[in-house]
C-alpha cells in the first residue's frame, strides 16, 4: 500500500506526459533535439553567445514587465521611477537588473556578431541569418536608446535631445523623422509617451518576430563551422548532441550570465539623477552610453576636421556606408565562399573591431 502510494505521483506524471504526447507529439521534438548535433572544435566556445544574448533578452522581458507594473509614462515618469527606486521593496534591484541586463545584452550581441563574422558564418546559405541578426542588433540599440529616456532624469533628457539632433542633420528626411519621433520641437512628456509605446510594444513586437525567424534559420541550417574546421577531413571532425550535451552547457553559460548580472545589479545599483529640467544646463562631461560612444567620437572628430554642417553629414555618411558594407559582406566575400581562409575579410573584421574599441576608448579620453 505504502509503496503504491509513493509511486502514484510518478505514475500520474508519466500518464499526463503520455496524454499530451499523443496529442502534440512532444517525443518528435525531443527526438529532433537529440538528433541535432553541434560541431566540436577549438572555436566552439563562440557558439554560446547567441544563447547568452537570448538569455538577457528574456531577463529584459521579465524585468521589463515588472517595471511596467509601477512605471507611469508622461508627466509622472520621473516620479514613478523615483518610487520604484527608493520606495518600493526591491524596486531598485529590479530596475538595476533591467539596466545592467540591457548593457550585457548589447555586449553579448556584439560578441555574437563578431564571432559569426570571424567564423564566416554569414556564407551561403546563411545570409539571412546574418541580415536578421543585424536587424536584431539595430532593434537592440533602438530599445536601448528608447528605454534610456523613460526615467526622465537629466542624463536621459540630454542623451535623447542630443541623440535626436544627429539624425536631424540628414538631408530631406532628417527633420521629418525626428519631429515624428519627438512629437514636437522639444523633448517632453509627449516624447516619453511615444518612446514608451516604442519601447514596450512596437520594438519588442518586431524583435520577437525577427528573433523567431533567426532561430528558425539556426534550426534549419545548424551551426556553421569556420573555414579552418572545414579544412579538416569529415572523418576527423567531432560533434556533440544538442540535447542533452550542448543544452546542458548552454544552461551552464546562462547560469554564469545570471550570476554576473546578479553581482553587477546588486553591488552597483543603477543610479537615478535629478529630474530633467529644461532650464538646467547640461552637466559637465556628459556623454552617451558606451555602445554609442564610437559613433559619438566619430562625429566629434569629423566635426573638428570639417567645421560646420559638413562634419556631421560626413560623419553620418561614414557610419552609414560602413554599416552597409558590413551588412553586405555575404554578397562580396567570394573567397570565403569557396571555403578558403579569406585573410582579407578576417583583416577587415579586425580593423572594424579594433576601430570600434579604439574609438570607444578614445571617446572616454576625449570628454571635456
Amino acid at each position, binding site marked *: 500500500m505504502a509503496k503504491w502510494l509513493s509511486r502514484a505521483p510518478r505514475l500520474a506524471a508519466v500518464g499526463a506526459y503520455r496524454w499530451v504526447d499523443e496529442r502534440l507529439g512532444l517525443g518528435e521534438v525531443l527526438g529532433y533535439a537529440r538528433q541535432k548535433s553541434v560541431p566540436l572544435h577549438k572555436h566552439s566556445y563562440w557558439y554560446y553567445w547567441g544563447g547568452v544574448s537570448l538569455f538577457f533578452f528574456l531577463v529584459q522581458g521579465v524585468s521589463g514587465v*515588472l517595471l511596467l*507594473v509601477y512605471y507611469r509614462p508622461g508627466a509622472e515618469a520621473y516620479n514613478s521611477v523615483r518610487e520604484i527606486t527608493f*520606495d*518600493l*521593496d*526591491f*524596486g531598485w*534591484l*529590479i530596475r538595476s537588473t533591467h539596466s545592467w541586463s540591457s548593457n550585457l545584452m548589447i555586449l553579448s550581441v556584439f560578441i555574437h556578431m563578431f564571432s559569426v563574422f570571424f567564423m564566416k558564418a554569414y556564407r551561403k546559405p546563411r545570409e539571412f541569418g546574418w541580415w536578421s541578426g543585424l536587424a536584431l542588433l539595430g532593434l537592440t540599440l533602438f530599445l536601448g536608446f528608447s528605454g534610456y529616456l523613460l526615467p526622465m532624469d537629466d542624463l536621459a533628457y540630454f542623451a535623447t535631445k542630443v541623440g535626436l539632433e544627429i539624425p536631424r542633420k540628414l538631408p530631406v528626411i532628417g527633420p521629418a523623422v525626428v519631429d515624428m519621433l519627438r512629437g514636437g520641437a522639444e523633448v517632453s512628456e509627449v516624447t516619453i509617451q511615444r518612446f514608451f509605446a516604442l519601447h514596450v510594444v512596437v520594438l519588442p513586437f518586431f524583435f520577437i518576430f525577427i528573433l523567431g525567424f533567426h532561430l528558425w534559420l539556426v534550426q534549419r541550417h545548424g551551426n556553421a563551422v569556420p573555414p579552418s574546421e572545414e579544412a579538416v577531413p569529415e572523418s576527423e571532425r567531432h560533434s556533440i548532441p544538442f540535447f542533452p550535451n550542448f543544452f546542458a552547457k548552454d544552461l551552464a553559460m546562462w547560469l554564469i550570465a*545570471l550570476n554576473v548580472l546578479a553581482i553587477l545589479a546588486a553591488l552597483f545599483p543603477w543610479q537615478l539623477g535629478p529630474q530633467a529640467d529644461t532650464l538646467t544646463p547640461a552637466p559637465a562631461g556628459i556623454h552617451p552610453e558606451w555602445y554609442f560612444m564610437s559613433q559619438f567620437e566619430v562625429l566629434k572628430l569629423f566635426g573638428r576636421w570639417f567645421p560646420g554642417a559638413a562634419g556631421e553629414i560626413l560623419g553620418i555618411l561614414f557610419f552609414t556606408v560602413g554599416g552597409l558594407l558590413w551588412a553586405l559582406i555575404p554578397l562580396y566575400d567570394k573567397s570565403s565562399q569557396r571555403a578558403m581562409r579569406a585573410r582579407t575579410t578576417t583583416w577587415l573584421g579586425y580593423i572594424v573591431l579594433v576601430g570600434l574599441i579604439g574609438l570607444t576608448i578614445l571617446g572616454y579620453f576625449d570628454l571635456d
Partner: protein
Amino acid sequence: MAEHEHAESGGESRLQKTRRAFVRLMLSAVGAAYAGLIAYPIYRFLGAPARRAEGMAAVTQVTVQDGERLRANEAKMFRFGTRPAMLIHHADNTWVAFDAVCTHLGCTVQFQADKQRIHCACHGGTYDMHTGRNIGGPPPKPLKAYKVEMKDGQVVVSRA
C-alpha cells in the same frame, strides 16, 4: 572502487546509485535556492502596495469632515482607513456608522431614505439601517458597526 562498482550484478552499483541520488539532490537544492532568490524580491516588489494598504487600514479613529452638518434622515460616505464607510443621521437624532462594504461580494452599499434601509445594488442585499443586521437577499453577515461620538462639535468615528 572498480571492484565495488561491479559488486552487484546487472545495472548500477550501490555507490553509483547513491552518488547519482546525491548529485540530483544537490542540483535540486541549488535550483530551488536560485528560484527562491529570484522569486522573493519579485514577491516583495509586487506586494508592496498591498502591505502599504494594510498599514493604512490600521486606522482606529476618523473624524468625518463636515459630518456634523449632515441633516436628519440622510447618510454620508467617508473613508475609514482604506475602506468605504457610511455615517447615517437618523430622524430620531441618533447617529450610526457602518462599514459600507456588502458582506456578500464586496460592493459598496447605499442608504435608501425612502425605503428606510441599507441596500446593495449588486445582488439586492438589504440591511437594517439602525443595526446593520442583514435582513434580506444574499448577505451572510451584518455590516460591521462603528462607534459614533460627538467631540467638540465634530463627528468622530472609531472601531467599536
